[in-house]
């Protein structure tokens, strides 16, 4: 019989002002297997943790249930507390009575208290069936793979190589640099982009630890953190290598307008990146009208590409400094942050004109003998104005690369609805994927400035170095396994696994499923696919989940609490 301890958290007033904690404690102490039920003002405080650990020792508890906030933030803390108290961390169960109860039923204290009791009962019924787990470990190949040889990929490669990690940099084009090759200067301080690029390329090419593969595409990736098997197509030749960690730095593309503002018809109407190339060639800019948000912040592509306002500000300043005139026709100037706001102010002071237009009434562009004429409805004046200009620069957003879908599929990492790669957590894990050992940086993730791209690349390189430097990776024990007695070898699980972690093997004269635990990510898809109840997931077994359902039936339907 398990010895379960239940700890109900007041969370100050957060829980206790709605849920009667004392009531829930009294109820919990009557549940089967519970030998101790108590409460804490703040369970996660040092005092709270110490009191729980003391209680574990005094009551010889072998299962711990904490009813408090969400496991998504606090499970690691309580798990490590259990370990310190000598209880396997997988014998801990979290019950959420704050986010899922007190906070959302603030005006119904009686009902909230009854619900908290049922949730605690469900947690206790699962806890009784928890089993200790041993976390697996696997070796790490001390090599990194970086996909994409632009600013992000070069920065990450240089950093990894400087840390003494052998790094393969894969670039599908015949030269390094990506979009940086086309850019003249970098906002906000107008540094020469080619100087930065040359420095980075020299650093990478000069390092013994960095291996550059140009004209090379990713063909196949299998495996998992610590030992990815990578197949490259290097200028038509197949090449295989192994890597412990992978960084995705595939960048983004400039949106090319499809006829908007006379692009393609009216000579002198160019995109921002084409204007960058012209500046790089040393062309005199003359009179320039910049139109912002061409193809972004509109139905179908709602996002703000973030870098276009700052790029236009930077280039408008260059135009003015070269003796030309610059007008930025915008919907909102997005130049937040200290240096960027200064750039905006600087542009205003130096004579760059700003005119606001509305999404429903965009500027009209046509060519006359004297030059291009931009007809703009000025929202502030409330009337139409005409500007004669030599060039119209369309600030188009960065869009995701079409082939990022392929990279995403090969690496089994998600992309958002716009095709940009999706990090594991916007705040807690901003440069890594949920797939362990795969990281992301730069514009592949979201339109980023050069500085942001480099920061992310350095972060990704530091993160990727962790498993490689440690030499071992821990595998969370929520993996699946097959019960050999129940398995009929049908292969449903093999087909259902998104990670190709299951195979059929010979076992005592029959075929059964076998899970490669280092490859299993613990989604449990195979559990639902199994018609024989043979597939089980650690921490989420069918017995444990059934017990929770039984408990809800018992306490909600059979007994009035």
């Amino acid at each position: 019989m398990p010895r379960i301890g239940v700890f109900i958290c007041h969370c100050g007033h957060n829980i206790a002002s709605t849920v009667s904690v004392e009531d829930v404690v009294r109820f919990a102490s009557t549940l089967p297997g519970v030998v101790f039920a108590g409460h804490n003002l703040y369970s996660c405080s040092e005092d709270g943790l110490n009191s729980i650990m003391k209680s574990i020792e005094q009551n010889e508890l072998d299962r711990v249930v904490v009813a408090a906030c969400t496991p998504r933030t606090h499970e690691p803390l309580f798990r490590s507390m259990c370990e310190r108290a000598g209880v396997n961390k997988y014998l801990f169960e979290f019950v959420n009575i704050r986010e899922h109860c007190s906070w959302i039923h603030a005006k119904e204290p009686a009902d909230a208290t009854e619900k908290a009791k049922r949730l605690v009962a469900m947690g206790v019924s699962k806890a009784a069936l928890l089993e200790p787990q041993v976390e697996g470990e696997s070796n790490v190949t001390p090599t990194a793979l970086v996909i994409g040889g632009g600013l992000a990929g070069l920065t990450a490669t240089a950093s990894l190589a400087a840390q003494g990690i052998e790094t393969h940099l894969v670039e599908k084009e015949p030269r390094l640099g990506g979009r940086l090759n086309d850019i003249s200067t970098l906002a906000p301080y107008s540094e020469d982009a080619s100087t930065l690029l040359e420095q980075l390329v020299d650093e990478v090419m000069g390092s013994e630890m960095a291996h550059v593969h140009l004209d090379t595409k990713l063909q196949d990736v299998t495996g998992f953190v610590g030992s990815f098997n990578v197949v490259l197509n290097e200028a038509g030749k197949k090449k295989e290598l192994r890597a412990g960690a992978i960084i995705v730095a595939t960048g983004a593309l400039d949106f090319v307008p499809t006829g908007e503002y006379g692009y393609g018809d009216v000579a002198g109407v160019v995109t921002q990146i084409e204007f960058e190339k012209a500046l790089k060639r040393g062309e005199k800019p003359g009179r320039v009208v910049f139109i912002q948000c061409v193809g972004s912040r509109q139905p179908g592509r709602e996002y703000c590409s973030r870098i276009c306002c700052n790029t236009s500000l930077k280039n408008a300043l260059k135009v003015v400094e070269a003796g030309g005139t610059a007008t930025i026709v915008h919907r909102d100037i997005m130049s937040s942050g200290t240096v960027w706001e200064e750039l905006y102010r600087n542009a205003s002071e130096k004579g760059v004109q700003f005119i606001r237009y509305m999404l429903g009434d965009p500027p009209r562009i046509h060519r006359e003998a004297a030059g291009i004429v931009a007809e703009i409805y000025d929202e502030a004046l409330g009337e139409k104005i005409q500007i004669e200009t030599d060039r119209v620069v369309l600030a188009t957003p960065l869009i995701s690369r079409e082939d990022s879908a392929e990279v995403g599929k090969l690496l089994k990492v998600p992309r958002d609805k716009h095709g940009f790669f999706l990090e594991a957590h916007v705040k807690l894990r901003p440069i890594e994927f949920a797939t362990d050992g795969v990281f992301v940086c730069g514009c592949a993730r979201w339109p980023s400035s050069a500085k942001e791209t480099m920061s992310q690349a350095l972060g990704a390189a530091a993160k990727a170095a962790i498993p490689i430097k440690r030499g071992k990776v821990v595998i969370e024990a929520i993996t699946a396994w097959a019960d050999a007695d129940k398995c009929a070898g049908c292969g449903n699980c093999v087909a259902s696994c998104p990670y190709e972690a299951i195979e059929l093997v010979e076992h005592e004269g029959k075929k059964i499923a076998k899970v490669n635990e280092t490859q299993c990510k613990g989604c449990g898809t195979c559990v639902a696919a199994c018609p024989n109840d043979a597939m089980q997931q650690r921490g989420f077994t069918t017995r444990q989940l059934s017990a929770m359902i039984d408990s809800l039936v018992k306490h909600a339907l059979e007994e009035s609490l």
Partner: protein
Amino acid sequence: MTEFKPTILAFCCNWCSYAGADLAGVSRLQMPPNVHVVRVMCSASVKPEYVMKAISQGIDGVLVLGCHIGDCHYMTGNHRTAKRIPVVQKILKDIGLDEKRVRLDWVSAAEGEKFQKVIVEFVGEVAKLGPNPLKEVRF
């Protein structure tokens, strides 16, 4: 007669819908206290048997909430959920129950309001259906 308050079980995936439920909580979005969330790693791990078990034992409604299609933490897990749950709904219909007692929906980690909306709607719908008739003849 006292007002009927349905008992509802909800399976939420760890990465999207459970996080969405957390966000609803953090945002203090109020909703009826009938729903009991069970956390699973992926909506694709919800065995149809769990849903059938809950309904057959008298639970008034079962929600299965996952990540939006295309956003699954496990890439394509929810594609399977999207195929499985309609099968469960069909079975319910075939045995004479209202298939509206089981609902599948997608709630992202950023959709606290959507979570609230789904809960309010579902509790309302199930309340309208009345108590699960299997409550008295549980098998």
